[in-house]
């Protein structure tokens, strides 16, 4: 038999009598739902306030400008305007598997109030990139000024080892360019021409993608990744590549 609880007639018990243990259990449940214990795949700073900061993931910000992006993940509604803007700006071929950025979808059946969340992904412009280490001909390299991982397409032999090495699936072989292609924070198409943000960040109507410079303390990206109210994490920290794309929500 179903046992109905009539919520309208229940008295508010107040929070005075909730024990610390109960508070902790509740908090733990919340943390579990938001994915902090999700198999160690994401690392959250929430459990270690004042200890883990974005600077720990990136170790330091050696570039100037030190370009970075923060995804305010909770704001993403999967409208894909970022993907469309990227494809147009960077002439991404319209074939299956060709993209510089995309939005992944995650079912969160256990979460209160939401059934899915969206995770935008792109090249993490890592401080310790695998792709540049494995490339035999230095066709892909870390720009010494900006820290952006760039391609010198005439040197690419198409061995695709960089695709194997990338822990973020951020690379694909562009048959039109005859070289591996990847996100370069719109370096050639926007930043080097004086624009202040990337095409995807510019197109986002929900302020998900915040693009900026981590070397400046008054920069919005710096402020978001260094605040301690909300969790900040990176994808696949265990790969040890010290990514420069951060995630936050809440």
């Amino acid at each position, binding site marked *: 038999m179903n046992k109905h609880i009539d919520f309208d007639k229940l008295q508010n018990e107040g929070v005075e009598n909730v024990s610390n243990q109960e508070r902790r259990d509740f908090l733990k449940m919340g943390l579990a739902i938001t994915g902090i214990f999700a198999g160690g795949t994401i690392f959250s700073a929430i459990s270690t306030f004042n200890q883990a900061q974005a600077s720990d993931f990136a170790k330091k910000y050696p570039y100037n400008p030190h370009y970075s992006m923060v995804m305010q993940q909770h704001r993403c509604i999967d409208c894909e305007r970022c993907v469309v803007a990227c494809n147009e700006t960077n002439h991404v071929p319209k074939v299956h598997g060709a993209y510089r950025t995309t939005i992944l979808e995650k079912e969160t059946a256990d979460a209160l109030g939401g059934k899915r969340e969206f995770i935008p992904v792109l090249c993490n412009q890592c401080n310790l990139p695998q792709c540049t280490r494995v490339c035999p001909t230095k066709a892909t390299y870390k720009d010494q000024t900006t820290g952006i991982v760039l391609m010198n397409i005439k040197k690419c032999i198409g*061995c695709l*080892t960089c695709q194997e090495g990338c*822990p973020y699936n951020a690379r694909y072989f562009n048959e039109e360019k005859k070289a591996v292609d990847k996100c370069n924070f719109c370096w050639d198409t926007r930043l080097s021409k004086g624009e202040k943000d990337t095409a995807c960040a510019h197109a986002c109507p929900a302020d998900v993608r915040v693009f900026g410079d981590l070397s400046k303390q008054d920069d919005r990206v710096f402020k978001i990744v260094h605040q301690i109210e909300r969790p900040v994490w990176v*994808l696949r920290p*265990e790969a040890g590549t010290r990514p420069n794309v951060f995630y936050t929500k809440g």
Partner: protein
Amino acid sequence: MAHHHSTPTLNELVTGVANRLKTAGTGFYLMVFIALVVVLASAGTGLMAMIKGHENYYNVYREVPWGVLIATYVFFVVSSTGLCLISSIGHVFGVQDFMPIAKRSVFLSIATILSGFFVIAFEIKLPWRMAIWNVISPNLTSNIWWMGTLYGIYLAFMFAEYIFLLMNKHTPAVVCGFSGSVAGIAAHSNLGAVFGLLMGRTYWQGPYMPIYFIASAMMTGCAVIIMFHILGYKLNREEMPSDMQRSLEVTTKVGILLICVILFFTTWKLLAGAAGQPDGAYPVVHSEVVGHHAFIFWFFEILMGMAGPLVLFVLSRGRNLSMMLIASCSMIIGIFVMRYNLVFLGQSLPVYYDLGVNEFKGMLHYAPSVYEWIIAAGGFGMTALLFLIGEKVFDGHKVEHH
């Protein structure tokens, strides 16, 4: 066995080769023809893919960029390194029992690595750029760069060694053989490191790959030596002399040991991927042992590649040539699949698997296209072609007695 003490003139050599080719039977020419057709079909398919775009012909894709052609390349360079290392026991390190296999093995190590290069040329999207930029823009942290460069050096030493063996110049042959072995080990362990040092791929990651590759090369070398020596004598319709029989007997013993070594390695690799269910490795090991990939693993890699040949080699006592031929053929098929498993399985787990997103919830799949198979077959065609021609041109790779 010929006992020449004077170096033959060029005319005598040419006449000898011409006579051997003239007297070869129809069967020989039929085999040469088939091998040649396979090589030409493969080259044609590869060129077509290169010109019209690999993506139209190959089934590899963004998440699985390495397919059967990489596996075939790995197979051939594993074979070449193994031939070099096992044969060096005799002609480089002076163990008499291994001396008779030297010439054919060194010849085949050149044939197999050329076959590997042939296949990789159609796998890499822009091989002509490699020829330029590998030289003028080297990346010294790249294992691919070291592998390519060291295999180039290795090939040069093996060529030189073979020529010195033909000329009966023992000392330079030993120097080149030793240098070739060192270059081969360095190159081949770098190939292992291409996989082993990728931080985001748990199934491959660690020092296991470079070590496994060397042991696996030696195991493969034994199989290839046994198979091609028995086939060589069948082809030339000659009775195998007792010193060659003794050579294959000891090669079989080394082969038995190395099968046990690789079985031991494989056991611990699987247990390490199962105990504690490590992220990134466990789902792969699960699919390998009991999941989607289990039949391919157990039937080809374990049964045909190792367990079956192990039993046959032991039963043959290194003397029953028919049994050894069956065992080595089975082993070579199994080892080819072993290379395929190694290359594919490491990629089968999506990099975003643990994120739990809808796009990458399951294991990835890949089945080679018919074009990829044709190009892979070209590698085997080329080894067969070079083997057949080598038997006639170099008169069964007979070893001179001093």
